[in-house]
């Protein structure tokens, strides 16, 4: 395989079908529409299912139906569309079904705008609609990482029978850069043992999430919580840059993390002891590594394209052992590396050099 110049949305779409996605249902919304458009052409070419739904609500319920049939299935949208999908996500979560949802985040709240944002951190990490649940959430910082994490998303979804959200921001969806696509995988020849395929030669299977008795509902919730504990144990992912001797640690994910890396590199060239911790999994939050790095840091700077959402997870891990600062831009504004450099210089003066 070789590298090609690819737009993020198209790369995610192509990676998904190569990872064995058999059915896609979606609804147009900027800045993710190229993803739907690519699949509108490619899925029928491969004899697979593509359908433009009448709404995001219908799209996620079509995904729910296809997931019940035991095939790899996906939808994609952007922030307001993900808001609409919360109902279906909750049912999928409560039915132990695997599926992948791509959120190419845009500015909010409300209709907001179509510019890059990370304002969905709460929406995607805290729950899937109502009830106690967390999707697995993956945050790419480049087109190549978006490709790799799309494949991983399908594998994790099947491994845990769990909802996986690829949380890309509008920058990742819209930018073009070189990336290598994965090889085309064969579709599985058999359906999983929960799939609704008709009760031929076996008892009927039922997929539902309705428990009238509190004890039964609580017991089911405990099963979800046990699975989440396994996920937290095994699936924390992050990358680190210049962290060996960093006294100031920047924490940022996705595009904000990538921009922060430019700032960190600039300051390193000037001999200043800064490093970057970039979470790949937003849920499970990579708390084990962050806790270890916190032991050596004098201060932490969280950088996000929102008002400070992951900031809460960082504070939970750091537990006031070191000062935690925040630099964020909102509403579709993207920080420049210089803004982060300035924020770091201020912290260096007050927390490290003083």
């Amino acid at each position, binding site marked *: 395989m070789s590298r090609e110049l690819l737009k993020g949305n198209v790369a995610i779409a192509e990676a998904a079908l190569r990872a064995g996605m058999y059915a896609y249902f979606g609804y147009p919304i900027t800045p993710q529409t190229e993803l739907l458009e690519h699949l509108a052409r490619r899925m029928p070419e491969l004899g697979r299912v593509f359908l433009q739904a009448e709404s995001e609500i219908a799209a996620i319920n079509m995904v729910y139906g296809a997931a019940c049939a035991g095939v790899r299935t996906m939808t994609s949208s952007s922030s307001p569309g993900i808001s609409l999908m919360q109902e279906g996500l909750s*049912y999928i979560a409560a039915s132990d079904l695997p599926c992948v949802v791509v959120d190419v985040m845009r500015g909010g709240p409300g209709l907001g705008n179509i510019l890059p944002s990370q304002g969905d951190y709460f929406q995607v990490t805290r729950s899937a609609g109502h009830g106690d649940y967390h999707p697995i959430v993956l945050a790419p910082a480049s087109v190549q990482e978006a490709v790799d994490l799309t494949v991983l998303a399908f594998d994790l979804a099947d491994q845990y029978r769990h909802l996986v959200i690829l949380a890309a921001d509008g920058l990742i969806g819209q930018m073009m850069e070189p990336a290598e696509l994965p090889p085309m995988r064969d579709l599985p020849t058999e359906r999983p043992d929960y799939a609704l395929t008709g009760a031929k030669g076996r008892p*009927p299977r039922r997929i539902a999430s309705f428990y009238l008795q509190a004890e039964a509902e609580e017991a089911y919730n405990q099963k979800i919580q046990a699975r989440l504990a396994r996920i937290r144990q095994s699936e924390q992912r992050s990358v680190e840059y210049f962290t060996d001797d960093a006294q100031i640690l920047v924490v940022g994910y996705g595009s904000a993390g990538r921009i922060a890396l430019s700032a960190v590199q600039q300051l390193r060239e000037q001999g200043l002891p800064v490093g970057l911790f970039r979470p790949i999994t937003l849920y499970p939050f990579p708390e084990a590594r962050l806790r270890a790095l916190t032991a050596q840091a004098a201060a932490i700077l969280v950088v996000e394209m929102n008002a400070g959402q992951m900031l809460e997870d960082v504070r939970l891990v750091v537990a006031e052992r070191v000062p935690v600062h925040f630099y964020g831009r909102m509403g579709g504004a993207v920080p420049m590396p210089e803004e982060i450099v300035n924020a770091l210089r201020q912290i260096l003066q007050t927390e490290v050099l003083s």
Partner: protein
Amino acid sequence: MTDWLLEATTTHMETVYCMPQSLSAQPTHYCPGCTHGVAHRLLAEALDELNMRERAILVAPVGCAVFAYQYFEVDGCEAPHGRAPAMATGLKRVQPDKIVITYQGDGDLASIGAGEILHAAARNEPITVIFINNAIYGMTGGQMAPTTLTGQRTTSSPFGREGEPLRMSELLAVLPQTAYIVRRSLHTPAHIRKAKKAILTALKVQQAGLGFSMVELLSSCPTNWGLTPPEALEWIEKHMLPVFPVGDYKVSEAVKEL
């Protein structure tokens, strides 16, 4: 064992009535006099007669029939309120050889799920919809439904409903691409026999790949109408039939040839 029964078991007798294979043997949770049980039995009989049980998938709604999947010996699942046609679309598109059925009440289909049923019909999605119209929300205790009659008193229209009910069969039948849309009633044995025939036709439509099929069934809700079961059946005849006439609203040319 009495003598006459002993005698009967030794005589050859033809079975004329039994539990359908597609129906689960378990006590019902529906109220006395409710016609959900009749509708369930008709669907189960139809699945048996067409030998579809082993490839049927039932999508249950939210409402009184929320447990519908438990009453059928077929694969089943549970849709969010109103979303059964979208879920059925996902199930059917990835396995077109299966028989996918939604079973929905009037609040589910005509109110919160009005968008999903309209677009499933507009796509001529080859699924079969069993639509139970009893002019009220049953599960939540008798609130106004989109099919509640003008002037009908419910817990949320205590002074009588203003405005007109939605007539879903008529509404969907204007879409030229649909295959089979009919309304039947469950208030007398004669009407029940006609309802059974319509369900058989709707399932055959799906089997033949002819497109969207829906059977609307006028049903009773004695509990929330505040009537006895016999009074409720009379109420269908007297009040519902004039507003919701039984009849064939859409039978495509291809369906006529079945």
